[in-house]
């Protein structure tokens, strides 16, 4: 329901995991297989000499330090910034508005209905039910379209399809009030509150 970039997450985690796995396996092989040690000496020695030459060729005139260090520092700052941006993308998507549309009626203008209207109305309608241990309603923004997420925690033994049908009727009533159909996700779940509560015996 949130706009977490799931495909990007998979790719970036996969890249990091593959790199760490490769480094770890290389270290284990270095510790156990002597032949890998000789290969590593020739390969990394050559790489290190090449790197040294680059550093020697990029010195500040008249000073021992290379300006590559500054470039490296800048690159690392950019990398840290990208990581912060990546974290900031996680779990976004809550929204405040259920309806935000231009209404070209008798009095033209924008109509905006807060998500709190749906949240309060549905929560109030669900609060009195004896077969529910808890209910939460939240408004999300799914690619520019407001949608509701209703999370229900029924007591033991409640038939989920009957509960879903009744809640769908409530949503239909809400749609009639709001004046347009709202996409809804109903999640019927179990949690600590349902596990330790008594069973509902009447239904």
């Amino acid at each position, binding site marked *: 329901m949130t706009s977490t970039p799931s495909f990007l997450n998979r790719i970036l985690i996969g890249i990091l995991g593959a790199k760490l796995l490769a480094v770890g396996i290389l270290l*284990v092989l270095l510790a156990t297989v002597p032949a890998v040690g000789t290969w590593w000496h020739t390969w990394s020695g050559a790489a290190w000499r090449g790197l040294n030459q680059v550093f020697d060729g990029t010195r500040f005139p008249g000073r021992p330090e290379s300006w590559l*260090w500054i470039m490296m520092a800048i690159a690392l700052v950019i990398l840290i910034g990208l990581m912060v941006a990546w974290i900031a993308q996680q*779990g976004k998507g809550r929204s405040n508005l259920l309806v935000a549309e231009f209404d070209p009626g008798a009095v033209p203008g924008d109509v905006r209905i807060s998500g709190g209207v749906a949240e309060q109305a549905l929560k109030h309608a669900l609060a009195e039910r004896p077969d529910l241990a808890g209910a939460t309603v939240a408004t999300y923004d799914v*690619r520019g379209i407001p949608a509701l997420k209703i999370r229900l925690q029924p007591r033991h033994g409640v038939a989920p399809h009957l509960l879903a049908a009744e809640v769908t009727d409530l949503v239909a009533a809400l749609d009639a009030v709001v004046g347009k159909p709202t996409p809804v*996700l109903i999640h019927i779940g179990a949690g600590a509150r349902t596990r330790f509560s008594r069973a509902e015996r009447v239904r």
Partner: protein
Amino acid sequence: MSHKLVDELLAGPGEAAPPPNGRQPDMRRVVHRETHSSRAAVSVVAAVLVMGLAAYGLLESAVHAIGQPAWLIEPQLAAERIVALPAGLSPLLLGAGGAVIAMVGLFFLLNAVLPGRRARHVLNSGNPSTAVVVDDEVIASALARSARVAANVTPEQVMVVVSRRQVIVNVRPTSGVPVTEQAVLAAVEKELSEMSLDPQPEVRVTISTAGVIGA
């Protein structure tokens, strides 16, 4: 799962694409998000790990760039030690360190590759703009109730396990009161068909040969 990934790739991660089919969001995508675990927490851990390494590298390279002595280790010295690696460290320490790094890498890699399904089923409702997702635990407790009523036993004598494609109902009958497998199976299957889950699981009923006394 793979075609879903392709869908998301085509749509572009995190972009505000124009809503498909008018003013309706793609409910298939919403349901997929809800039945598969999010990698948000793992991503944050990975990002913090990379940020920590980058911050250390930044510190050392900045210190080097202005010609000050290094904080922990001179980059030159560190590189030389890495080049000479099997020497200079005990093989046990090196192997253990490598194994730990490989394990962390495997954790991230598996998190990226595995489908990450949650123990949830989709409930087919007739309404296209309403999606219903149910935890397997809730399905199990509803099926246990109908099995209990059909077998006429107490709640403690019924155990139901719901997995993606299978429902296993275990009934321990009261001693001296026979329970017919057919009746329990019929009751559970009727309840299950009313739910119309996706994917539809198969029901298996086991009546225990040992009874419960005094229930």
